């Protein structure tokens, strides 16, 4: 959860070749909706089931099968569109997007397409977020619903594809597409926007929003705006499987275009793929012909109708969204805006924080631990807090041990990784390992005497006025007790003995 990398690699992109022109970035985000069943049939949506076990005539596109819209998916789309302040179409239709590909069992995808009088579910919204410490807003062009495709597995033999297996478990899984206007001005800003959008989707319980698992997929349009303000030719960048990949791919692509232009070349409108291993984008091997998807209204489905009263009801039942939450943390709990943002941008983190806060009233101490040590450990493991055994009760117990003087902060920091990895009970750990803080003056006096006797040089230096020597001597006592000594008491006892 460091604030750094976003800015660092954006700068790296610029450092490669100064970008005279400003990048213009628009994003197309597909998220998998958190529904129990698929978009147009009753098959379960589940991750990791054996291939082709979650299928039926509908999602297998068998002759005669018909789709029926999943009302829950529509409700989640509606909730998102309302939260993104979109205009809701009173009536929107599904369309067929026709193209041949073996992962698409009907050889058309049921999607929503904006054509003449056919609006998507939601359009013309916006999302506010913070980038590089400043408030920003990105316009949302559209929010619509569609179905996912199956998955192809190319089986290779002796370096060549011998055959392809198809798993249709994913076929028909509900997807929501969110398309931004080209309002983003840097790769770092794109990343911050995606973090904010993901947080919103998670608060709304609309999607798990995990790029690494494919429940959030991002494509980007990138162009450069010339000094004259005119937008340049754009490329579409695909195959970015993490936030970091998005940022690096966009930085690379912006720099690539700038290089091209600087050398007197022109940018070709094309689809480019991010190669994670080589850290570059490359044009699709096969030149894509201009695809004609022959969209037309899906005759097997009735239009989605949205009543204004329903929109109002959804608006009033929206959960607290990230921006509101951050404001409340600052005004009601006294957190810094920076800490509030760090907590709020990760919904599991915020949920953890709020549950801990109900047990332990010191919001600032909680926030310090969460945004500092806990976040550091989570980042190292690339996990969200709800994916670890750490519970609010455990962290609060740890903080209480400090408050009660039973362990030092230092010991607490040492124990934290065990809580995060193993969910240990801090009191039990402390008791079992004898980590309880030593606050007994007699015991500590003995240790202080030992330290003074063992380090006459330090005593000498202190008396000459070097206060650093005192720190050294405290450290020796701490070392002797493996951190268990009460540092304040050791300090006082030393000063008494040294007459300082």
């Amino acid at each position, binding site marked *: 959860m460091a604030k750094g990398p976003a800015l660092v690699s954006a700068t790296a992109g610029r450092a490669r070749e100064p970008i005279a022109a400003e990048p213009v970035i628009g994003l197309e985000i597909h998220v998998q909706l958190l529904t129990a069943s698929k978009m147009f049939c009753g098959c379960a949506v589940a991750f990791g089931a054996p291939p082709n076990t979650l299928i039926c005539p509908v999602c297998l596109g*068998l002759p005669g099968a018909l789709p029926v819209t999943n009302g829950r998916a529509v409700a989640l789309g509606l909730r998102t569109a309302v939260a993104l302040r979109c205009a809701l179409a009173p009536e929107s239709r599904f369309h*067929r997007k026709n193209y041949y590909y073996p992962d698409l069992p009907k050889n058309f995808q049921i999607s929503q397409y904006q054509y003449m009088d056919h609006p998507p579910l939601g359009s013309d919204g916006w999302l506010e977020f913070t980038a590089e410490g400043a408030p920003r807003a990105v316009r949302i062009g559209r929010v619509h619903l569609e179905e996912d495709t199956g998955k192809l597995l190319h089986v290779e033999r002796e370096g060549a594809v011998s055959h392809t297996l198809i798993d249709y478990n994913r076929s028909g899984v509900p997807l929501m597409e969110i398309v931004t206007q080209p309002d983003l001005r840097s790769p770092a800003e794109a990343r911050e926007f995606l973090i904010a959008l993901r947080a919103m989707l998670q608060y709304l319980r609309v999607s798990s929003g995990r790029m690494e698992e494919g429940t959030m997929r991002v494509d980007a349009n990138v162009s450069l705006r010339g000094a004259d303000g005119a937008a340049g030719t754009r490329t579409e960048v695909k195959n970015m499987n993490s936030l970091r990949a998005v940022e690096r791919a966009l930085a690379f692509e912006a720099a690539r275009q700038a290089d091209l232009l600087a050398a007197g070349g022109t940018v070709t409108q094309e689809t480019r793929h991010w190669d994670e291993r080589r850290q570059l984008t490359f044009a699709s091997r096969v030149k894509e012909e201009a695809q004609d998807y022959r969209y037309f209204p899906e005759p097997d489905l009735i239009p989605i109708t949205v009543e204004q009263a329903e929109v109002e009801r959804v608006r009033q039942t929206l959960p607290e969204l990230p921006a509101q939450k951050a404001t409340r943390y600052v005004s009601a709990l006294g957190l810094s805006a920076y800490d509030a943002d760090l907590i709020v941008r990760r919904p599991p983190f915020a949920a953890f924080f709020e549950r801990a806060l109900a047990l332990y009233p010191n919001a600032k101490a909680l926030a310090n631990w969460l945004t500092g040590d806990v976040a550091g450990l989570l980042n190292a493991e690339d996990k969200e807090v709800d994916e670890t055994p750490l519970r609010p009760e455990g962290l609060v117990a740890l903080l209480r041990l400090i408050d009660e003087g039973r362990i030092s902060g230092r010991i607490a920091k040492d124990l934290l990784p065990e809580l995060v990895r193993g969910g240990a009970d801090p009191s039990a750990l402390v008791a079992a390992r004898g980590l309880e803080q030593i606050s007994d003056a007699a015991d500590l006096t003995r240790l202080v005497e030992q330290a003074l006797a063992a380090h006459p040089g330090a005593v000498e230096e202190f008396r000459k006025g070097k206060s650093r020597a005192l720190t050294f001597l405290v450290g020796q006592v701490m070392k002797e007790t493996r951190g268990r000594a009460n540092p304040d008491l050791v300090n006082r006892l030393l000063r008494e003995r040294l007459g300082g």
Partner: protein
Amino acid sequence: MDLSFLPVSEQLAQLRRREITPAVLAEAYLARIAALDPSLHAFLYVDADSVRAEARRWDARYAAGGDLPPLAGVPIAVKDLICTRGVPTTCGSQILEGWRPPYDATVIARLRAAGAILLGKTNMDEFAMGSSTENSAFGPTRNPWDRGRVPGGSSGGSAAAVAAGLAPWALGTDTGGSIRQPASLCGIVGLKPTYGRVSRYGLVAYGSSLDQIGPLTRTVEDAALLLEVLAGRDPLDATSAEVETLEMRRSLSDGGTGLRVGVVREGMGEGLESGVRKAVSQAISLLGDLGAEIVEVTLPTIGYALPTYYLLATAEASSNLARYDGVRHGLRVPAEGIYDLFARTRDRGFGAEVKRRIMLGTYALSAGFYEAYYLTAQRARTLVREDFDRALGAVDLLLLPTSPTVAFPLGARVDDPLQMYLADIFTIPVNLAGLPAVSVPCGFAGGLPVGLQLIGRAFDEATLLRAAAAYEQAAGWWRKVPPS
């Protein structure tokens, strides 16, 4: 009358009185199929053993007494466009040869629950694209009244089977006339219900916004009886309507008195065979004699219906038929790359008419043509629908011939698609409007059956069938059966 030609309503009465048993009934049809189908070719699949086994189960149920479902032990033939679990469903196409659906269409599930026995799957124009059943990949069906002529299409197998007494009744599907036109050409009753009345789940799609499953029967009463079983909202079909399914037979005997029937002027004009004109005119007189008020109405936009249909139905078909690619089911022609596999499978698997319509529809939806073709056709469809709504605001029913001609000779139109398309000129507008319509036998021209078409208001099949029944009972054509 031969048991095989009895209306189902009468067969059910005899079954309930234990005068016949389901096994006797099944054997009667299996015997006729064995004797006559080699020359008619109405069926693509009959599993006699399973028919007999099921019939015996119903024999036991009748013997045991107690409550029985409404169609207990009655066989039914089903157009091969409707999915039947474990039973081959080819849609008349090479591309689905050998495919056995893992599921039953909703109508099949309803029929099974009602006690009906699946007698077999009937021949049809490939993917319901045609008006003569000559577009079947498995060879044409012949007209029971004249083996040298077509039975109409695309539900030609179902119509011929019922007309020849190879089945007591059958399911067909109607996208542009595919129930009514073959019913007319084979001299039986064919009902296309209101769009949304009968679930399409498990009906292999041709033109999704037009397709409807319906009965082909010997009598109007049988059509009503079968519709009662088929109709109703299905959660698996989003376009199936949430309307009350009335007891269709309740008003059947109310007669023709007080009905206002509008004769569509455009249906009685040029291009009509004189024999057809004569038979339909006599039917109009008879309806008048029965107490119906006959008025003339016009449907000025009806002339746009044919081109409109051939843009919309083919546009939908081009997308609906994309799934036949050799990957998951049916025919696969191996090739080096996946796109070659798609192309070769589709090239070998589809017949000429299917390819023609896929190309037409693909073109109509293509960038740059979409507005000129697809969108214009949608607007024209709205005009046609409004035209019908206006006309049906002033009358209870509309009347015109089902087909401008009687059955034509095999091969007469296969090289002239436009002539073939004109066979449905009076039925297609009804699909565009989504309305219910029935074809009832109204006499003969040159020894070949003529059909009278009645069109009703949306979801008012009851009035439609009442008028059809009144005419049918007074005219008595339904008793005529083809020579064996």
